[in-house]
C-alpha cells in the first residue's frame, strides 16, 4: 500500500530500537570489558576498546590472590560473601515458600474476615522506606544478640520475600478454576488429596518462579545486608562497597566483582522470563 512511508517508519523504529539496545547493553559490555583489563589498561586514557584480555581480576576477587603476583589487592573475602548470600537468600526463600504457599492458598480460596485488608497491608510493606524497618532491627538485634547472625539476616530478608511470595502465589492459585477442586472432591479425594494431586502439580511452575524471583530480590538487596551483617556474614551485594571505601583505583577488580554479583540474578531471571512482569509488579499486571 503505502510502501514509502512504511519503510521510513520502519527505519525510524529500527534506529529507536538500536538506541534502546545500546543504552541497555553498553554499560554491561563496558563493565565486562573493564573486568578483563589489566590495571594499566583500565586507567589508560583514552579508554581501550581493544586490549589483551586477562582473568586476573576474577582471580583476585575470587581467590584473593593474583596469579601473576603483580596486582594490588584489598583483602576482601569475596567467596565467603558469595556463600553468605547463598545461605541467607536460600534461607529466606525456603522459609517464605513453606509458610507462603499455604497462606497464598488460603487467600485465594477462602473468605475470612479482614482478608483483603490484611492482604493490602502486606503489599504496603513493599512501599515502606527500608530504613524505617532496618534501623530498629539493627538496634533490637544488637540487644538480643541476633546482629550479624544468619538467623537474624534470614528473618530480615524474609520480611522482603514473604509478602511478595504470598501475593504472587495467590494469583497463581486464583488462576486454577475452583471447579477443578470441586470435581476432585466429588471424585472422592480429601482436601489434602486435592491439594497434592491437583493444585500442586498445576502451581509448581508458579512456585518455582516465585522462589526464583524471591531469591533474586534477596540477592539484589543492599541495605538490609549492609546494616545487619557483620564482616563474617556480609552478603555479596553490600560487600561491593568494600571496593569503593578504599580510595585506591581497583576498578578492574570492582568490575569483576560486579559482574560476578549480577550473574546469578541474570541467569535465573532468564529461566523465569514468562513470570517476570507478574513478579516484579506483585502480580498486579499479568504479563
Amino acid at each position, binding site marked *: 500500500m503505502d510502501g514509502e512511508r512504511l519503510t521510513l517508519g520502519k527505519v525510524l523504529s529500527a534506529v529507536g530500537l538500536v538506541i534502546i539496545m545500546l543504552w541497555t547493553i553498553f*554499560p554491561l559490555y563496558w563493565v565486562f570489558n573493564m573486568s578483563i583489563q589489566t590495571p594499566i589498561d583500565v586507567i589508560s586514557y583514552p579508554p581501550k576498546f581493544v586490549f589483551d584480555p586477562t582473568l586476573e581480576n576474577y582471580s583476585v576477587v575470587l581467590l584473593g590472590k593474583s596469579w601473576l603476583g603483580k596486582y594490588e589487592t584489598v583483602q576482601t573475602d569475596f567467596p565467603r560473601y558469595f556463600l553468605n548470600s547463598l545461605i541467607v537468600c536460600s534461607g529466606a526463600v525456603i522459609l517464605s515458600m513453606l509458610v507462603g504457599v499455604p497462606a497464598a492458598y488460603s487467600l485465594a480460596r477462602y*473468605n475470612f474476615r479482614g482478608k483483603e485488608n490484611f492482604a493490602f497491608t502486606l503489599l504496603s510493606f513493599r512501599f*515502606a522506606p*527500608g530504613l524505617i524497618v532496618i534501623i530498629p532491627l539493627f538496634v533490637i538485634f544488637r540487644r538480643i544478640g541476633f546482629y550479624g547472625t544468619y538467623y537474624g539476616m534470614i528473618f530480615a530478608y524474609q520480611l522482603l520475600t*514473604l509478602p511478595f511470595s504470598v501475593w504472587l502465589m495467590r494469583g497463581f492459585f486464583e488462576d486454577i478454576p475452583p471447579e477443578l477442586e470441586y470435581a476432585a472432591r466429588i471424585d472422592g479425594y480429601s482436601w489434602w488429596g486435592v491439594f497434592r494431586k491437583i493444585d500442586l502439580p498445576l502451581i509448581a511452575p508458579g512456585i518455582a518462579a516465585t522462589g526464583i524471583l524471591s531469591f533474586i530480590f534477596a540477592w539484589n538487596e543492599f541495605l538490609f545486608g549492609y546494616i545487619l551483617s557483620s564482616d563474617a556474614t556480609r552478603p555479596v551485594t553490600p560487600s561491593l562497597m568494600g571496593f569503593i571505601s578504599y580510595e585506591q583505583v581497583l576498578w578492574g577488580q570492582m568490575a569483576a566483582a560486579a559482574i560476578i554479583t549480577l550473574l546469578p540474578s541474570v541467569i535465573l531471571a532468564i529461566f523465569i522470563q514468562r513470570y517476570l512482569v507478574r513478579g516484579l509488579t506483585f502480580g498486579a499486571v499479568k504479563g
Partner: protein
Amino acid sequence: MSVESRSRQSFWSKNIAWLLFMPAFILTAGILIPFGYSVVMSFTDFNLTAGTSNFIGFGNYIKLAKDPEFWNALKVTILFTIGAVAIEVGAGFASAYLLNLGMRGQKIWRTLFLLPVMLPPAVAAIMWKLMMAPIQGVFNYLLQSVGLPGSQWLGGSSSALFSVILIDAYVFMPFAGMIFLAGVQNLPKEPYEAAAVDGVSSWFTFRRLTIPLLKPVILIVLLFRIMDCLKQFDIIYAATKGGPASATMTISVQAYYHSFRWTNMGYAFAHLVILWAIVYALSYFLVGQWRKAVSEVHGY
C-alpha cells in the same frame, strides 16, 4: 460414628483458612515491631553511642521543620522522583511501542531489554560510577570524541542529581517498559477492529480508547516507580553517598547519616516517619485510583 467424624471434619474445614494463613501472618507481623519501634523512637532523643533515650514529644519534628538540611533533602527527593519517573515513563512507553512492532529478533531484544532490572541497583550504581568517572570514564571520552564537552557527572554539584537520575532510569526504565509492553499486548484486539471498520481515525481511537484502556497499567507504573524513587537509597548511596555537598542528599540518605554516622537515632526516625507518611498517603491514593481504573475497564 460416621456422622461424628464428618462433623469433626467440618470443624477443621471451617477454620482451615486461618490455620493455613497463621504462620505467614505471624512471620510478617514481625515487621510491625520495628515499625512501631521507629514511630515511638521518633519522639525521643535516642542516641546510639550514649545509649540514652528521653521522651521529647514533638521535639524532633519541630527541629525538622526548622532544619534547612531537611528541606533541602525533601526538595532533592522530590526532584529525583519527578526526574526519574518522567524519564522512565516516557522512555518506557517508547520502548514498549518499539518492542511491540514485531521486528526481527524481537524475542532476543525483549530479553536483553530486561537485563538491567535484574541488576542489584547498588551494583548498577557502581558500574555507572566507573563509566562516569570524570577523567578516565568512558562517557566523557565518548562525549569528547564527538566534540562535546565532558561533564563532572556524579562529582559536579550541578550534574550529580541528574547523574543519579540517569542511573535510576537505567535500572528501572525497562521495568516501566515491560509493564507497558504487557499492557499493550493485553489490549483486546477486537475493539480496534470494530473501530477500524467503523471508520474511526487512529488518533481518535488512541485518545478515546487506548489511553483509557491502559490507565490501570499507567497507574501501576506510577505507583511502583514513585514509591521506589521516594525511598531510593541503594543507588544514591552507592553512587554519591549523598554528595557532593548535599546535591543528592535525599531524606533516606540523610536519615542514614543521622542514625549511623551521627547516632542521632531519634532525629533519624523523625525523618523516616515523615517520609513514610508521604509514601503511604501517595500509595493509598494511587492504589485507590488504580482499583477504580481496573473496575472501569474490567468491571470488578
